[in-house]
């Protein structure tokens, strides 16, 4: 079941992404409704992170295009926020919590310019929203996994965006942090912001999200969460039926085969 929507906030059209000629996403046609809290789910290596990165222009597309707010990506970057997977950065980097949250203001401030007092106040408010205001001067290497995730979230909030992409914000966090984060995400969605979250736990999916996307190298399903999170669709996503697809992918890598004939 793949439900397309009118006036989507995000539209992926015939999107194919390859790493070193090996396709990891095949022909994804996806549109997501404004203001939804969207969960993207699928097994490990399904291409969830890749989907987000493709939408943010962080990986080259082999085919297809991305439209956000019905515009080209570069025209709307200031309205989009991205929370990468926590392990994607080195937490031993010499920076304080405040330094990292302030990075969320860089886009608004622009190149070459210094941060203003207002930026610091916004960053502080965002830290408050994730209950980390007492950690502002803490060195980031001294944070627990859950605290690191909160810092990343605060940085995203500091961007004051309308569309949020979050890669596994619940991975490796404690139950209290998970609850705090989901409450925050629901608040944001209630304010009309669209939040797209890569998620692992199917148990909580229907409680957390109002729209669900199932992915496994291709788009399996996209639609209202209760309609999508059903046994047959989950079987299709998580079952071992896709070996053929990945076998062909491996073959294409071996032969350095072009994804599209052109």
């Amino acid at each position, binding site marked *: 079941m793949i439900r397309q929507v009118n006036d989507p906030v995000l539209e992926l059209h015939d999107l194919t992404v390859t790493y070193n000629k090996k396709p990891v996403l095949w022909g994804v046609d996806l549109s997501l409704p404004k203001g939804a809290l969207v969960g993207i789910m699928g097994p490990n290596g399904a291409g969830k992170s890749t989907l987000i990165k493709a939408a943010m*222009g962080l990986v080259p597309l082999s085919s297809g295009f991305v439209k956000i707010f019905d515009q080209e990506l570069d025209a709307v970057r200031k309205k989009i926020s991205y929370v990468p997977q926590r392990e994607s950065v080195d937490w031993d*980097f010499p*920076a304080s919590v405040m330094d990292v949250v302030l*990075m969320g203001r860089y*886009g608004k401030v622009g190149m070459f310019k210094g941060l203003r007092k207002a930026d610091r106040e916004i960053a502080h408010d965002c830290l408050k929203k994730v209950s980390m205001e007492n950690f502002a001067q803490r060195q980031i290497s001294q944070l627990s996994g859950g605290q690191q995730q909160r810092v990343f979230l605060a940085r995203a909030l500091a961007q004051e965006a309308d569309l949020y992409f979050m890669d596994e914000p619940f991975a490796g966090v404690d139950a209290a942090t998970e609850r705090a984060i989901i409450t925050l995400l629901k608040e944001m969605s209630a304010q009309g912001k669209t939040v797209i979250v890569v998620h692992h736990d199917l148990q909580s999916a229907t409680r957390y999200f109002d729209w669900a996307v199932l992915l496994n190298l291709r788009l399996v399903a996209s639609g209202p969460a209760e309609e999508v999170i059903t046994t047959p669709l989950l079987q299709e996503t998580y079952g071992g039926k896709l070996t053929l697809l990945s076998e062909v992918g491996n073959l294409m890598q071996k032969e350095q085969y072009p994804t599209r004939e052109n």
Partner: protein
Amino acid sequence: MDNFVTFFSFQDPNIRYVVFGSVLLASSAAIVGTFIFLKKKALVGDAVAHSVLPGICVAFLIAETKNPFILVLGAFVSGWISLVLLDYIVAKSKIKEDTAIGLILSVFFGLGILMLTIIQHSGMAGQSGLDSFLFGKAAALVGNDLVVFSSISILIMAVVFILFKELRLIAFDTNFAVAIGFPVRSIELVLTTLTVLAVVVGIQAVGVVLMAAMLITPAAAARFWTDKLPVMLLLAAIFGAISGVFGAYISYVAPAMPTGPWIVMVISFIAISSFFFAPTKGIVIKSLLQRRFRMKILEENILKIFFRIGEENKDFKKHIQAKELQKYKHFSEGDLKRGLRRLRRQGFIEKTGSLYQQTIAGNNKGKRVVKLHRLWEVYLMQYLRIAPDHVHEDAESIEHIITPEIEKELEEKLNFPQHDPHQSQIPYQ
């Protein structure tokens, strides 16, 4: 010694120039190097450093003199070509980055050495001094060279200052920088250019062979002292400058001596000292702290036993043989002796003849540890549902690290229980 005084009084203007130049070169290399270090690209720095040699030789062959402009240009071009080739190889072939770096480094450096040998045997006028680019010669930093190289160093520092925010972001989280629309490729291009420039000017004092050490080592040393990037940049620059001055000094007392190895010795010495002695991150402090913590545990364990013996005999003033303590917990001979000696010195126990007795202060301290132990056992049982016969081991280590705040929280959360899971009384004050 005379040399030392003459040199460091900076009376001689020549000395002043050389020192000024060396400080600038070394600290600009250290500043750029800090970002290379944080991006974990140390090997790339090494490759560039070696790859400028053929460019220098070609520049010399064209100009037939040691014209600093042309040399810088030549070095810059070949350093750049090496990096472009490196990117190309990694992107277009199956060769991994480390292999590609090794490849580039050895091919370019080999080529450079070959050309250098040819030049030396050609008997060209003014060739002398070209080989000082291999291991550096700080004293050569005079006249035109000084002006050109110092200007480039100042330019490097200015660019880092202007782009500080952007460089910090791409060093920490490149994807995020792309996501917010920063021109990451251009910023990285700038950083690459700065790296090549820092190498080009640095080799005058350090030489191509050891230049990478000048980029990376100051940053590595500075990292031990601070968790703040601006401070780290400043420290790296200072460490670089110190080694630069020393290189200039060597050049002054022993003009025939190449300066690069000496400069690198100094910066390595700074790095090694930082590794050992830096506060909090240095291993000496770390092991001192660990030792102190071990001693604290030992002392608390002994006092705990004094308390328990007192508890069992209903007499906290009882005189005790050292041997008796061993019945409750095993201590090594040395540990027991050391622990008792320290406790006596601190006034927590007293000794009469061969018998020990706890003081009031010692009793209070022992009582607190016993209380924490038993409270923790209750906590583990009630909140973590751990079986009563499994809680003792955990409590044995936790009792020593509980802070007064956690202690208070425990007491309130558990509502001051009277007994632990083994029915021993929990002693409150």
